[in-house]
C-alpha cells in the first residue's frame, strides 16, 4: 500500500533538497531563447525553477539515449560504461514519457543483445511520475490505451491539483524523504482523479486504425503521397519523439586512439538509407514518412507484443514546422483500410 503525502508547492524545494543528497535531480524548467519560451528537462540546482504546469517541449529520452554518446575507444576487449556517483532522479515525468521509456526497454534490453549503455542508465535512474490533470497541447495518449494518470512502474507518482502536489510513495526505501510532510486523504485524491479523467473523456478522439497496421496493404496504400505532400523532410518529429531510437555510429581520431561515438539519426533524412553505391531505396519524402509511421504502428507492434512505438505525446505535431498532424495520418489510414476488404477481420 502506497503512502500518500500532500505538499504545498512551496514545500517542494525542501523535499528536493533532501533528495538531492542522494540523487542528481533532473526536472522540467523554463528556458527563454529569443522569443521562444520552452519547458525542458535540465539538471536542477535551484528547485524554485521547476515548472510542472505543462508537458515539457522535450522528452527525457536523452537521459537514457543521449543524442551524442561516446561509446569508448575502439579496441578489442570490454566496452566502457559510465557510472556516476549519484543516481539520477527525473522529476515529474508524465504518462506519455513513462510509457515511451517502457517502449524503448525491449528494444535495448533484448536477450540476444543488451545495450549496456542504455541498461546502465536505466539501472541508475529513477523517475517520479506526474499525472496530467488536463490534456496537453496535442496529446492523445488515452486514444492509444495509455492512462494519463497511469502510475505503474514508478516508485513515486505525483498529482498536481493546482495548489498542492500529491505524492503516492510506493517504494518503501523512499518513504524516509517524506516523513515530515502531512498525509493526504486517499478519498479526496480519488475524487480528483475521477474528475480529471472525466475531463479527458470529453476531449478524447477515437483512433480506430488496426494496430499493428497490416503490413502489405498499408505499405502499398496510395495515401502516403497525400499525407506527406507538405513534409519538409527535416528531423524535428523524430528528434522530439520520446520513442524514436534510431542511431548511427561514427569514429573520430583523437591523437593515437580512435573514439567510437553514436549519435541519433532520423529516418526522415535521405542519408539514413543511402547506399555506398549511391542508390537510395527510400528516395522520396513520402517513402520516408511511410517508414516512420509504419515502424511505429506496424513493424514495432508486430515485433513487440502489439505495442505501438508511439506514446501519443503529440510533440511531433506541436513541433512540426508545417504542422503535420499524426492524428490526421492515422485517420487517413483508418479510412483507407476500412474500405479494404478483409483488413479489419484479419487485423
Amino acid at each position, binding site marked *: 500500500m502506497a503512502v500518500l503525502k500532500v505538499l504545498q508547492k512551496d514545500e517542494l524545494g525542501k523535499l528536493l533538497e533532501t533528495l538531492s543528497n542522494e540523487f542528481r535531480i533532473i526536472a522540467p524548467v523554463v528556458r527563454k531563447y529569443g522569443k521562444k519560451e520552452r519547458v525542458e528537462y535540465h539538471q536542477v540546482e535551484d528547485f524554485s525553477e521547476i515548472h510542472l504546469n505543462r508537458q515539457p517541449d522535450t522528452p527525457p529520452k536523452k537521459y537514457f539515449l543521449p543524442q551524442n554518446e561516446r561509446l569508448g575507444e575502439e579496441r578489442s576487449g570490454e566496452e566502457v560504461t559510465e557510472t556516476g556517483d549519484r543516481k539520477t532522479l527525473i522529476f515529474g515525468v508524465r504518462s506519455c514519457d513513462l510509457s515511451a521509456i517502457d517502449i524503448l526497454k525491449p528494444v535495448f534490453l533484448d536477450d540476444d543483445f543488451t545495450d549496456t549503455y542504455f541498461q546502465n542508465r536505466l539501472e541508475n535512474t529513477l523517475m517520479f511520475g506526474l499525472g496530467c490533470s488536463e490534456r496537453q497541447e496535442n496529446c492523445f495518449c488515452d486514444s492509444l490505451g495509455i492512462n494519463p494518470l497511469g502510475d505503474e512502474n514508478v516508485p513515486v507518482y505525483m498529482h498536481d491539483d493546482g495548489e498542492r502536489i500529491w505524492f503516492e510513495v510506493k517504494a518503501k526505501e523512499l518513504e524516509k524523504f517524506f516523513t515530515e510532510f502531512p498525509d493526504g486523504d486517499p478519498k479526496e485524491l480519488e475524487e480528483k482523479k475521477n474528475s480529471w479523467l472525466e475531463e479527458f473523456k470529453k476531449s478524447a478522439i477515437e483512433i480506430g486504425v488496426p494496430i499493428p497496421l497490416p503490413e502489405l496493404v498499408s505499405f502499398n496504400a496510395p495515401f502516403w503521397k497525400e499525407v506527406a505532400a*507538405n513534409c*519538409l523532410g527535416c*528531423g*524535428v518529429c523524430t*528528434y522530439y519523439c520520446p520513442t524514436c531510437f534510431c542511431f548511427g555510429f561514427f569514429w573520430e581520431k583523437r591523437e593515437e586512439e580512435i573514439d567510437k561515438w553514436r549519435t541519433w539519426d532520423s529516418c526522415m533524412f535521405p*542519408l539514413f538509407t543511402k547506399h555506398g553505391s549511391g542508390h537510395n531505396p527510400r528516395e522520396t519524402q513520402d517513402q520516408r514518412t511511410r517508414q516512420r509511421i509504419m515502424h511505429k504502428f506496424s513493424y514495432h507492434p508486430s515485433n513487440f507484443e502489439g505495442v505501438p512505438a508511439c506514446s501519443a505525446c503529440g510533440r511531433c505535431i506541436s513541433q512540426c*514546422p508545417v*504542422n503535420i498532424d499524426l492524428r*490526421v495520418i492515422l485517420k487517413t489510414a483508418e479510412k483507407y483500410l476500412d474500405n479494404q476488404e478483409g483488413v479489419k477481420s484479419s487485423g
Partner: protein
Amino acid sequence: MENKYLEISKKIQEESRKLLSEGKVERIIGFGRGEFTKEITPIFVSDPDRADELLFTPECDMMLAKYLLDYKGSKTGIVAKPCDTRAITVYLAEELIKREEVFIIGINDCEGLDDNDACEECGIRNPVVVDLEIGQPRKEEIDPEIKDELEEMTREERFEYFQKEFSRCIRCYACREACFVCTCDECFADSNQPQWVGASIGKRDNFTFHLMRAMHMAGRCINCGACEQACPEGINMRALTKHLYRVAKDVYQFEPGLDPEEKTLFATYKLNDSEQGFLD
C-alpha cells in the same frame, strides 16, 4: 478572423475554384487549417470542390515557393505573399522553375505575419511577380532598417555569441528544409564522401554547419525569416543571414528576388565592386 483576411480568403477560394475548374492549373498550393490542431498548414488543392479549404491569415508564416520544385513540368497555382513572390523570382532568375509553369495568386499590401521578426525589416509589401492580385497594392514605399546586431560586435564577441546560440542546435535541419534558398540536390551536410561536417551535435560541427550554410546564402537570402520560424530550438540564426543580406544591399546594392531577369550576385563581377567581404 479579421474582416480583411476573411475577404482575402474568400477571394482566394473563388479564384482558385475558377482556375481549377477551368483547368488552368493542376493544383493550388496554399494555406489551410489542421483538422485537430486548428493551426495553419500548407495544403495542395486539385479538386475545385475543395477550394474552400484555402485561406489566408497573418499566421501563414510558411514559405510555399519551395513546393513548386516538387511539381516541375506541370502548371501549378500558388498563393503567394510578397516574400513568396521574391522566392519565386530567385527561382526564375536561377532558372529552377519556368515562368509558364506557375500561376501566382499574389497577396497585395502585406502587413507582416504574427511572430515573425523578419517582417519588421521587410520593405517589399506587394508581390514582385504576379498573375492575379488579391486586394489593393500598397502605395507608399517603405525602407525599414535591418537590425544587424553583428555590426556592433567584435570578431571575438561574434564567435562567442554564435558558439552559444548554435550549442542548442540538434541538427534536425528544419532551417535548411524550410529555407527556399536551400535547393541543392545533395547538401554538404549530407555528403559523406568527402565528409565536410561531422554528424555529431558538438560545438565544432554545429558551428561548421551553420556557417557553411550561411555562406551559401549571400546574395540569395531574402531575409524572410523562414529558418527561424521553423527552428524548434529558437536559435537566432538570422543574425548571420540578415547580416549577409544587409551587406549585399548596402555594399553591392543588390537585393535578391526583385527582378527575374537579374543575374545573381555571385554571377556578376564589376570592376568597381567593393573590396569589403561579407564577414567584415
